[in-house]
């Protein structure tokens, strides 16, 4: 298909925490980097995230989490995506995720896990790289 198509990214917040300054910061940064960005708003369920991603036919989902329940919620998103036959969507996560959980998340299909303090440039270049060759 058309490789020069503007890429679409869903930034989602699952879990119970209501802080979304970080997520909104990423949303704006991605917009400024030339992506079309959809933001889910706070406290979304994995079902809402996956439905949105499929209907909007996004290329990437980035999930932000500050609550503790990341393993469960993120696993559920990955599972639902597979059920929807949408495993082609690139998944990444960011937030307060302990290092010891990262390998598990990666095994679920999360391409990258960014912990607090990860420079924006790292996120942008990872996406850039992935989406350039990804089509």
């Amino acid at each position: 298909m058309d490789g020069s198509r503007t890429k679409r990214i869903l930034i989602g917040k699952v879990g119970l925490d209501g802080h979304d300054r970080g997520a909104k910061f990423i949303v704006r940064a991605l917009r400024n980097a030339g992506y079309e960005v959809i933001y889910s708003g706070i406290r979304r369920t994995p079902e809402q995230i996956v439905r949105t991603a499929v209907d909007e036919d996004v290329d990437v989902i980035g999930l932000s989490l500050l609550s503790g329940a990341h393993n469960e919620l993120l696993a559920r998103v990955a599972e639902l995506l597979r059920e929807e036959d949408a495993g082609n969507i690139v998944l990444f996560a960011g937030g307060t995720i302990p290092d010891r959980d990262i390998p598990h998340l990666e095994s679920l299909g999360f391409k990258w896990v960014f912990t607090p303090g990860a420079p924006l440039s790292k996120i942008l270049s990872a996406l850039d790289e992935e989406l350039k060759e990804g089509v």
Partner: protein
Amino acid sequence: MDELVDQIRRGDRRSLARAMTLVDGVGPDVTELKDRLRQSTGDVPWWGFTGPPGVGKSTLIDALVTLLRRSAHRTGIIAIDPTSPVSGGALLGDRVRMMRHAVDRDVFIRSLATRGREGGLSDAAVHCARLLELASYDPVLIETVGVGQNEVDVASVADVCVVVLGPGYGDDIQLIKAGLLEVADVVVVNKCDLPEAGRLLKEVHSAFAGIVGVAEASRLPDPHTPDSAGSDAEGDESVSASVRRVEVLGVEAKSGRGVEELLDTLMEADRVAREPARRQSLHDRRVLGEIRRSAMKRFEESLDRVLSNPTYRAHVDRLLHGECSLDMMAGRFAADAATELYRESPDAGDVPGEDSA
């Protein structure tokens, strides 16, 4: 492609979403798909919502969808936000107001960016709305950002047109009144919970209530409505079928107050838009608008090529030396641009005329 169209008809969500991506881009299959969609749709009225950013359009649509779902209407929504001219990116921020419908199988929401396409309404929106229609969503709601002139754009495809204003957003009635009159079936003043809304609502009322819109008459020719034939005979009270009243309503989208009344008004407008003669003229207008936009684009491209040809230097000199008028020169360039187009695709010349058959 037949398979894709069949799958969408059968309600396959993933196919619908993918087809929207297709019509939102450019590709070899796309023209064919678009032609096919145009042939297969046109029966469902589209409701357009326009107004300044931040006025509460998305919140209002969210509230309307909640009511529409109560009466089991399968509802489709296209929400358009502007592309940043600097980065080419866009913040598609409408859906966040509608998340409670995200897992409802009978609601389909798609966000689009304008991608530098003229006006608030992207060409892709028309085709995405058709895709929703094909998938049996009815009604189809379209949200666009618009102030003043841009509203004309949504009106050229929407069958029911709602202009949303609010305190602090679009107070300048006089400025936008002309543009509004052209297009609005309903003017909504949102955020009536705010104290400043009262004054705005009063102002809008006195500006619009009782004014009979002349929108239809100034739009494209409308050969199918009865008024072109019969209305002359009626008395001076007669308001031709295509001339409408502009309804004014105050609402609170956030709390839902007034939204039921708005829906009643919209359902009535929807009913009128489904009357066969009206349906056909609205659909004709939409398709003519598409032809016009596409033809204009081709013509402008051709004209740019003609104007960039170095041999036209001499003509510019003639103009500057007073040997001919600007009108003459412009006519010449326009004719050349058209000739160029004809040379590129001589077949195109046979399409519109019945005489060549």
